[in-house]
């Protein structure tokens, strides 16, 4: 069990590490919090690529090799470029220890909302075979990104779907902790480590209670983490790129990462995606009205890109009632 928990955490970090270090700009990579984006960006990578693999007629049983190949490529490329130094900071190692130990001792589980059944189905089938098997395309596509996380680890660890979901849920929940910790530390209570530590644990417990109170499901948890990362990054993106004078045809890897992250939220939790999409649109529109066309253009670019790279899931989101 300990071994499995370790493998899950390691996999999420390694996948996110390759993705983040190659695609994020240097200024963001230097921030300590960026390390805690890794597991969430690893989640993004899994959900995004699983989804397009399913629509490309490939089940997870085969697709996992494609995802692994991509992750290894990104990881090695990142290693070659030596993006690994700031991983071994004291506070990072301490938080990592908390997550690892916490995931072993605390059994946290949320409503799966039949994600487990879908995850089981997607091990050997792709989404394009749903109609053949008399299933509903829209129903199977709904929350496909969330179920693909369970499917991915189920195939990777060679475990039953239900056992896998029980394994990964506490890990994901505890991975929210560093996000809260650094949010408090960097924006509200800088350098008051003790207070930040205690407050972030209290907040995490509050979140847990809220999750239970409102009967939130596992996909809400995934969305919560990914959306947090996305909104933080898009904020940084606007700060970094507003003053640049790129032409219309310009594209950075950071923008690709943002588009992939936004697109993956559509497969993780469609309603959440709609909220974020509308939110960004209105932010862009407000800026346009205030004659800050550049911000509108930058946000539009991310939105258009996110649609172009996975239009089916967006179509599904629009059609789910």
């Amino acid at each position, binding site marked *: 069990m300990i071994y499995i928990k370790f493998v899950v955490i390691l996999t999420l970090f390694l996948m996110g590490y390759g993705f983040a270090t190659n695609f994020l700009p240097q200024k963001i990579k230097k921030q300590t919090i960026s390390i805690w984006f890794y597991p969430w960006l690893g989640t993004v990578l899994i959900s995004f690529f699983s989804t*397009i*693999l399913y*629509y*490309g*007629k*490939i089940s997870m049983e085969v*697709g996992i090799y*494609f995802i692994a190949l991509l992750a290894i490529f990104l990881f090695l490329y990142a290693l070659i470029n030596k993006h690994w130094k700031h991983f071994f900071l004291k506070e990072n190692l301490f938080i990592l220890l908390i997550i690892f130990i916490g995931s072993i001792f605390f059994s946290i589980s949320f409503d799966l909302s039949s994600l487990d059944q879908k995850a089981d189905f997607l091990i050997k089938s792709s989404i*394009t075979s749903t*109609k053949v098997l*008399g299933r*509903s*395309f*829209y129903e199977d596509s709904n929350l496909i990104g969330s179920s693909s996380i369970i499917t991915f680890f189920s195939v990777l660890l060679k475990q039953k779907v239900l056992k896998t979901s029980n394994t990964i849920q506490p890990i994901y929940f505890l991975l929210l902790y560093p996000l809260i910790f650094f949010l408090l530390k960097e924006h509200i209570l800088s350098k008051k480590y003790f207070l930040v530590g205690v407050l972030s644990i209290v907040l995490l417990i509050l979140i847990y209670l809220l999750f239970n109170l409102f009967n939130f499901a596992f996909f809400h948890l995934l969305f919560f983490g990914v959306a947090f990362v996305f909104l933080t990054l898009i904020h940084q993106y606007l700060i970094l790129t507003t003053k640049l004078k790129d032409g219309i*045809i*310009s*594209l*950075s890897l950071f923008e*690709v990462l943002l588009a*992939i992250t936004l697109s993956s939220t559509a497969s993780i939790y469609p309603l959440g995606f709609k909220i974020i999409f509308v939110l960004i649109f209105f932010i862009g529109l407000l800026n346009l009205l205030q004659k800050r066309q550049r911000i509108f253009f930058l946000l539009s670019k991310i939105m258009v890109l996110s*649609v*172009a*790279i*996975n*239009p*089916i899931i*967006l*179509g*599904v989101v*629009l*059609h789910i009632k």
Partner: protein
Amino acid sequence: MFQIVVYPILTVFILFFLGFGLTSLLIPSRLKNYSLWLSPWFAIIFIIFSYVIFGFLGLSVKSYAFFAIPFLMLLNVFVFLKKKQYFSLSIRDLIIFAFVIINIIFNLSPLIRRDKFMTALSLGNNDVITYSVASDYLVNHSLLENFATVATPSGVQHTAAADLMQGLYRWGEGIITAFFLNIFNLQAYQYIYIIQTILFALSVPLLYLILNLIYRHTFYGMILILLLMGFNANLLYILYHDFFGQILFWGLQLFILFFILAYFESDKDMKSKYNKYDLIIGVSLSALYFSYYEGTTLIIIPLVIYFIIKFLLRKNVFSYWQTLLKISLTAFLTSSYSFFTSIIQNYSWSFGGDHNQPIGWQLFRQKIPYANPYEAMSFYSIHSFEPLPYIAAILLSILVIIFILKGFLKSKMKLFLACFIVIYIALLFYTGIVDRNFFTYNRALTYSLFLFLVFFVIGFVEFLNNKKYIKIFIFFIMISLIMFSALKLNKRFIGERVSVDKSLVSIKEIYNEKIKEPIYMESYLDNDFPYWKQIWQFYFLYFNNPNFKPTLAIQSKRDISDNSLVLISKPTPWFRPAQVLLKNIVWENEYYKLGRLCNSDKCLMKRKEDLSAVNMGTSEYEDSLLISGWSAKEQTSTSRWGGGKESILRLFVKKESYTKLVIEALTLKAPQEISVYVDDKYIGKQNIKTDWQEYSFDLKNSLSYGVHNIKFIYSNTYRPVDLGINPDIRELSANFKKIMIE
């Protein structure tokens, strides 16, 4: 007739018009001179690429066009007013333009000369129906709808469109056709062949642009390259067979190749920042994945080889690596579904299929159905003539190869082009010599021919640079040979083509009748009904009126109940339709009648016709009596073959007492013994001879009033092809002129 010319001209105009603004904005400044002939392809790629996105968001082509056309027109206005840009036509462009129009008219000649109305044609292949159905479907339905909706038994159009869209992920052809169907308010059968001829003609100038890029402009070179591609019999053969995917692939392949050549021509353009080239090449590759991913490997593998060589040579490694990443990331992220599907499909086609299974294609010619270099250039057509004598073929091929080699040596970017040529030669070698499959060799040849044509032209121009009169002389000989091959094939096309003729189109008249019940097509009554007619009857009868489609599973024609509506062709001198008895005619026109079937034993017993005998080819009720094990009708013959080891029919006894069964029959070859069963009781057996003779079987007891099933069981079957009679591969037992009880 007038429409056959107007619609192609309008299509060409719209493509140039819609592509103008987009091209002006996107094309890198040093390629501005090439804008004109690239603009229709910019429009095509934009339409395919953007519709895939909108289609998956749930928009039909009709709704998409509502946004796309104004958007492209807005770009035109912007470019025209703000940037003050417009196309300028040179003499050279006018010549090319004239060539494009002539090429379109040449390929539409069967329509203009014979059919005289807009319709689908084919030299024999049936693929055109698949593209037609998908195109019609996309006008009013979205890609997402096709993926998401569960097909109902009556959703025949949905199911048929899904074959192409969900089975093969081949969307581009349907999208571009549907786009124009929506503008012109046409049905796909009217337009599907026309759009292919237009796409083919518009791809020819792209090869001329490539010639310009890797060599230079010469008048002779321009004329020769246009003719070599535009009237190449090998390529026309593909066009006449409606291989739409491959035709679109040629255009996209040349477009992509042009931009890759332009991009890599100078290292200056290869900056680490994302630029116009990355966008154009990446998106075009995506459009290719959406249209014909089978061909993408022919671009990607040479490119990867080129990058590896550059890497090994350590020349500008970083720039090339960055460029590769930018292009592949753009293409991969925007066509990821098709990319992954292509991996699975290409893998299963390459390693999963049985290479030795029959491929269903007649040999192009009995001896050497593989085009040699001379024939590949289309100076001599494998589709019209027997092979040249060996010596002549070898000498002429060597001459062509020398020209090609010379052309290669004189072209720019040799290393880059060599990567493509090596892969192409390897592919031709594998399909022609290792696999020895004439059809895949021909496909490989038509995939890869273009660069060889360009090198040949460069070689020709270089060799005869200072020999003006010889050059003119050889030039005219070559033109004559190319045109002769093209005309021969075109003539064959006019003669042998199958078309969606007026009779098939006339089925649409049934829509005006107030009929709301299933209609059975002729193929339900006759298993060997011609396939072309069958698929198009299906298209006209069921796609627009799903209510007409019978929902019951029909195993044999006996399952069709009395009073069912059946659509039957009226006989013509060259076609004998199913001969069944109808109670009454509900509707009819010049070509068809729609009647209520009399099919049950009870109904047939009440008929006044004498159903105790059947005279093949003359009895009006022949197919009402023959149940199973009968081969297709011989259109001009008064006999019918038993197919397989057993044949069954039914005969009716109404008044007299019958005591014997008489047949008039022959066999292809002795021995042939027929055993006869009446109502499953053995009656007797006799040896059949190879000439017409009557044979009589005693029925032992006289037959009672009612219906009686007669079964013939044969000792042997023979195939005419095995006996050297003709190429017929049917398993035939005995040929009958009459079967009667008396």
